């Protein structure tokens, strides 16, 4: 399926999907979705016989500081059986940075969403275990935000006592 045909199909399948064509997408298939369409639209894309995006290749975000809405969560979908790709971009406002989770749609979303929370401070509503993943729990701020200075120092944290502050998540409940 060509990129145009795929975008046409997706626009017909997913209500509210705006295809993003032209020079900026460099010929790749990109759509913009409202976040309220989220888990349902992704499920449709995964299950419909003409799209069949069984794999969430990657999930990330970008911070467009100074623009409204400020953030964009970006899903890279790939269909192993039909061999095509689609990028889904979801704008997220700065004052309410929450997106419904896709962890029930693709298992790879679990860790990827934790990383986006860690790096950008975007929350995923309904995520089973939304903790930091690359940074440590005491880390202050979200480093990939554009307003996080690259040379910012972090305070020292006390050594963790495994008895009073157990490491196992079901007990610790650490953020």
């Amino acid at each position, binding site marked *: 399926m060509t990129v145009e045909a795929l975008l046409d199909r997706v626009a017909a399948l997913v209500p509210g999907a705006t295809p993003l064509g032209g*020079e*900026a*997408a*460099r010929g*790749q298939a*990109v759509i913009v979705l409202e976040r309220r369409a989220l888990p349902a639209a992704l499920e449709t894309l995964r299950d419909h016989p003409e799209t069949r995006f*069984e*794999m*969430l*290749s*990657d999930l*990330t975000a*970008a*911070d467009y500081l100074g623009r409204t809405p400020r953030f964009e969560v*970006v899903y*890279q979908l*790939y269909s*192993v059986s039909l*061999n095509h*790709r689609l*990028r889904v971009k979801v704008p997220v406002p700065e004052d309410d940075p929450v997106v419904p989770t896709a962890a029930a749609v*693709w*298992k*790879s979303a*679990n*860790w*990827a969403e934790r*990383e986006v929370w860690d*790096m950008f401070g975007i929350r995923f509503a309904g995520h089973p275990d939304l903790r*930091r*993943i*690359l*940074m*440590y729990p005491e880390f202050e701020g979200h*480093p*990939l935000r554009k307003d*996080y200075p*690259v040379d910012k120092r972090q305070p020292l944290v006390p050594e963790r006592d*495994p*008895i009073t502050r*157990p*490491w*196992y*998540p079901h*007990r610790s409940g650490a953020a």
Partner: protein
Amino acid sequence: MAGAEGAAGDVMEIQMGPSHPASHGTIKFNLRLDGETIVDVEVEIGYLHRGFEKMCEQGTWNHCFPYADRLNYASPILNNVGFALAVEKLAGVTVPERCQYIRVIGGEISRLTDHLTCLGMAANELGAISAGFYMLEAREFLYDLVEAMTGARLTVTYCRLGGVMKDLPADMEERTAAALKQVRRILADCDRLLSRNRIFYDRMVGIGKLSRADSISYGLTGPLLRATGVPYDVRKAEPYLVYDRIDFSVPTGTSGDNYDRFMVRMAEMEQSMRIIEQALANLPEGPIAITDPRYFLPPKQEVYGSIEGLMNHFKLVIEGQKIPPGEVYVATEGGNGELGFYLVSDGSGRPYRVRVRPPSFYGMGAVGEMLRGHMLADIIPTFGQINMIGGECDH
């Protein structure tokens, strides 16, 4: 090692890592064990986080190439090529044919070193120390080739936006033929030592299994996915460079366990060597880089010999390559699977956003499910076959 307060029933809680002698990579497993059986495992990563994506936003596009090397340092040229292809797609340039062939050759040598590191270490950790050292010996022959090509052995920074740093040495074909002969000899030895070795076989078969549907849902790619029988290889699915002109096959497994992952990697190495030989045989003459002054540095003679060359050099180094605004996601087949770069340019000379899709990050996300119900000692071979490279997983 310490048990936590109030461990329920017979379940014992143990932390393994972050620095454990049997695991090559800084990673922590928070285990819940019933005897030696793993009830649950939670994986903590991030010990090698170096802010790759943040650092890339600070410099120009060419400044990112050395960082890209250091993602998966077992296969630096593949990372270099993947990043270069993504930036070139964003800039809308196509590199000359000779350069494409050179990148294929370099990339496949890197894939060989990656698989040799992975399998050699995996064998080593299961007690087959001699096989491990043999594979490192094979890797040494390949590192000599990499050194002849790039001048460095590990962090090579071989690619540039629009080309490669320097041409192949004149005697590359003879050097490669000699090196691959040695590699083939060693691999045949290792195959005889490992593939049907009772101990090795019993430790690998049926361990760390993941079903096909789960593997896809977890975003596993590369040898991990192919071991389940899905022939997904970016080189075949979306051929880039000159892979569509080269004859090679994509080995797959059936059961998706550690043994199949091992065998897929072993078979892939032979395919990589075939690719290198074909690429060298068909290597065309010609330039190794574009000459577009917006993107590629002028030759040193021009920089020191003409005012235009000097200005061009100055503008590129200080201001960077001004790539038109836009975004791309470009996937290539890295050593461990789909290595993707999502790049956003705002039209200035600096990357606005660089995102790497690290294949071993998603592999580690699935490790909990792979290990549940297995024995404590099965962590090491499973972890070895995922081939987590800290720099890539934690970017």
